[in-house]
């Protein structure tokens, strides 16, 4: 198939960016979206042009490195699918595709489609862990966990930290990301001891980084490649309120 791509090009942070148009011919339906961009980049390189910078690594949907907005949707049109797992059979000959970076002031553009997501790491550093030094642990089976809680924890913990939730949200809120980590740890007995401080510190960190608030659009849940439920946000809010009143 032949495609017309409109790609966000921006030389460096703070520089003026713009959408540039590229035609790509003979795209196989079996290519992944990123392989289609590889083909474009090889061609740009051969012509002596600067290839499009984009982030990617595992290309199997788990590392969370890739992330671009395709026709206005983070990770593109297929639900629960990262852009590295999106294949060109989801597009048609003659399609025009607009490709942009995550848009959020807390995720400044580094170059082209690459953004700086270190704000996520800083939120985790404020409480997204259990304070247990190596060597402290009792036997694994000394802490039984009901299967339903373990499954719930796993649902939340499957977050890959890609940032699609922020990109999808009209407020560029990081609520789903933060709530997923809190939801993971608070579904388990191991997470109970530091519960109050964790939710308080992580929510404040989220605000400090410049992410917006949640106004229940639920776009985050729709865009999440792992299908993490926005119910975790409600739980986080409840815990935050309780903790703030205490």
């Amino acid at each position: 198939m032949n495609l017309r791509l409109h790609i966000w090009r921006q030389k460096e942070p703070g520089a003026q960016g713009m959408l540039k148009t590229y035609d790509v011919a003979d795209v196989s339906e079996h290519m992944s979206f990123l392989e289609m961009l590889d083909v474009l980049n090889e061609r740009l390189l051969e012509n002596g042009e600067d290839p499009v910078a984009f982030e990617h690594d595992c290309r199997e949907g788990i590392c969370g490195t890739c992330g671009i907005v395709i026709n206005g949707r983070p990770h593109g049109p297929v639900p629960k699918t990262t852009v590295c797992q999106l294949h060109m059979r989801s597009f048609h000959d003659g399609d025009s595709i607009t490709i942009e970076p995550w848009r959020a002031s807390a995720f400044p553009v580094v170059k082209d489609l690459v953004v700086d997501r270190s704000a996520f790491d800083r939120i985790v550093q404020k409480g997204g862990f259990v304070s247990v030094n190596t060597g402290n642990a009792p036997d694994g089976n000394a802490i039984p966990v009901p299967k339903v809680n373990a499954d719930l924890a796993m649902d939340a913990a499957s977050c890959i930290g890609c940032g699609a939730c922020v990109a999808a949200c009209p407020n560029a809120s990081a609520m789903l990301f933060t709530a997923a980590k809190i939801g993971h740890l608070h579904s388990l007995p191991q997470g109970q001891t530091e519960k109050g401080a964790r939710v308080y510190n992580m929510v404040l960190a989220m605000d400090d980084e410049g992410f917006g608030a949640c106004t229940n659009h639920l776009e985050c849940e729709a865009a999440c490649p792992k299908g993490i439920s926005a119910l975790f946000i409600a739980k986080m809010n409840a815990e935050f309120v309780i903790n703030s009143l205490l």
Partner: protein
Amino acid sequence: MNTELSGRTPLGSLADKWEKHKNELKLVNPSNKRKYSVIVVGTGLAGSSAAATLAELGYNVTAITYNDSPRRAHSIAAQGGINAAKNYQNDGDSVWRLFYDTIKGGDFRAREANVYRLAQVSGNIIDQCVAQGVPFAREYGGYLANRSFGGAQVSRTFYARGQTGQQLLLGAYQALSRQVGLGKVNLLTKKEMMDVVVVDGRAHGVVIRDLVDGKIEALTADAVLLCTGGYSNVFYLSTNAKACNVTAVYRAYKRGALFANPCFTQIHPTCIPVSGDYQSKLTLMSESLRNDGRIWVPKERGDTREPNRIPEDERDYYLERKYPSFGNLSPRDIASRAAKEVCDDGRGVGPGGKGVYLDFADAINRLGRNVIEDRYGNLFEMYQRITGEDPYSVPMRIYPAVHYTMGGLWVDYNLMSNVNGLFVLGEANFSDHGANRLGASALMQGLADGYFIIPYTLGGYLASTGVGERTEAVREKATEAVQHSEEKIRHLLAIKGNRTPTSFHRELGKIMWDKCGMARNEQGLRSALVEIPQLRDEFWNNLKVPGTGEELNQSLEHSSRVADFLEFAELMVRDALHRNESCGGHFREEFQTEDGEAKRNDNEFTYVAAWEYNGNNAPLMHKEHLRFENVELATRSYK
């Protein structure tokens, strides 16, 4: 040539060695630990667990990753699970059995004492991860669940759905993040290691390049830990993440660290086949699928009928035929070679004949679609996303792909290379898997090294050597190493030729896959030794990299890594050529039994081949003879 190396394994009985060694290692006083600085390169399972634990102990730690976050490291992609000798299933597991399975699975080419220690600490890893909140699978009673994996007759694999690597890495990442938040770890992201600063046989630091602004600088420390993973991407197509590379360990090799058994690479039998020339990587399908899927090809060559139209008696279920007792669950190396054999015989299926069927029709008839969906639903979805085919109605097509590298930098029992103060952890070292790794053992080794071994052995080293003085010689060497790295970057940018780094990488990968892949022979290896230097020459004369070295330049990053692969590949081929035997992942066609099985040569090759860089001359080989005092060298049989 052929100097004898010692692994410095402690004396005493196998079961007591580690305890005894820990008691004898010197300790660093708690208030003195902050005087020592440690650089950890790489933040996968080994790197994150080591950095977090050393910071908890009080050392000054700097952790470096080329990704934008430590959580992106490729450990995250491990699916199946992590082994531990907990014997929670009461099925007869023990430290000894885990040790024996690992030594046997490695085809008797690993160091006994290291493997035994790995089995000993395996249980502590599970405890630690549970305490961190890793959401392992549970039974209804709330206790930990286990499943079985290839090469073992007990159920000892702990797992978190099909995302065990992700959850273990997040556990280590969170422990690391806690230390970063406390100011105990200086975390540097988007920085790539370019060189090691070595003075008088001791590592004093590293040279790093900032991938966003291109700045190159030296960092000094009292010890350096390389936790930089494996080199499967020398084949271009592998199941590794795109950025995985050999640069850190290869540059350490060029500064004097020995590279052990580089030819020991693992090919995983169940990956999605290549679909076209644009293919950028291969995707693994978990080994667990072989529990219920049956592997077959048509009996007739060139049979292009739809699989469902090929009658039962015209199918060859070759694994069940050749290995009746293990059948479709034969170990990875054996299943991979059998697939190659039938495809080479012209009976492969799919585009280019490079594939075999993995068929679930029988299992669906027997158990019902619901059961299969429950067991493998996410894998079936992934397969369908990538291929556009529905594996519930059409058999999957699979083909082997490079997956893991057992070889790596040589380390002694303390995980220290022959360069003092340069430690190597996880997949980057060679130590525990011999010539073949068993499933669910990579995660175990990475975390054993980081959580439970390095905290002791590093302390022993620092307490006996003291703070590394930043002498004039160290400063000079650091400056020189920075200039050397800057020069290399300038050189890459100055070639201004016509070929892209990807095209060189692809071509190198093809040479390696054809001549140093699943099966190797002398003739092929010798021709690779001619082709690789030719390609390398072309690379340095005809490479095209746009842009500058002072900006985010992904082509430049890739070029720098390909340059190292082009040198390293030759070392790998040399090692494969010298090892005149077949063992584990290293299959030399000249050395096989009458029915095509790997034939080891224990009399001549029961050693680790550790290669020393020798400038433009051929590398020098040192041998560490492996002594098996507790197990008998047996022929692996899965018939």
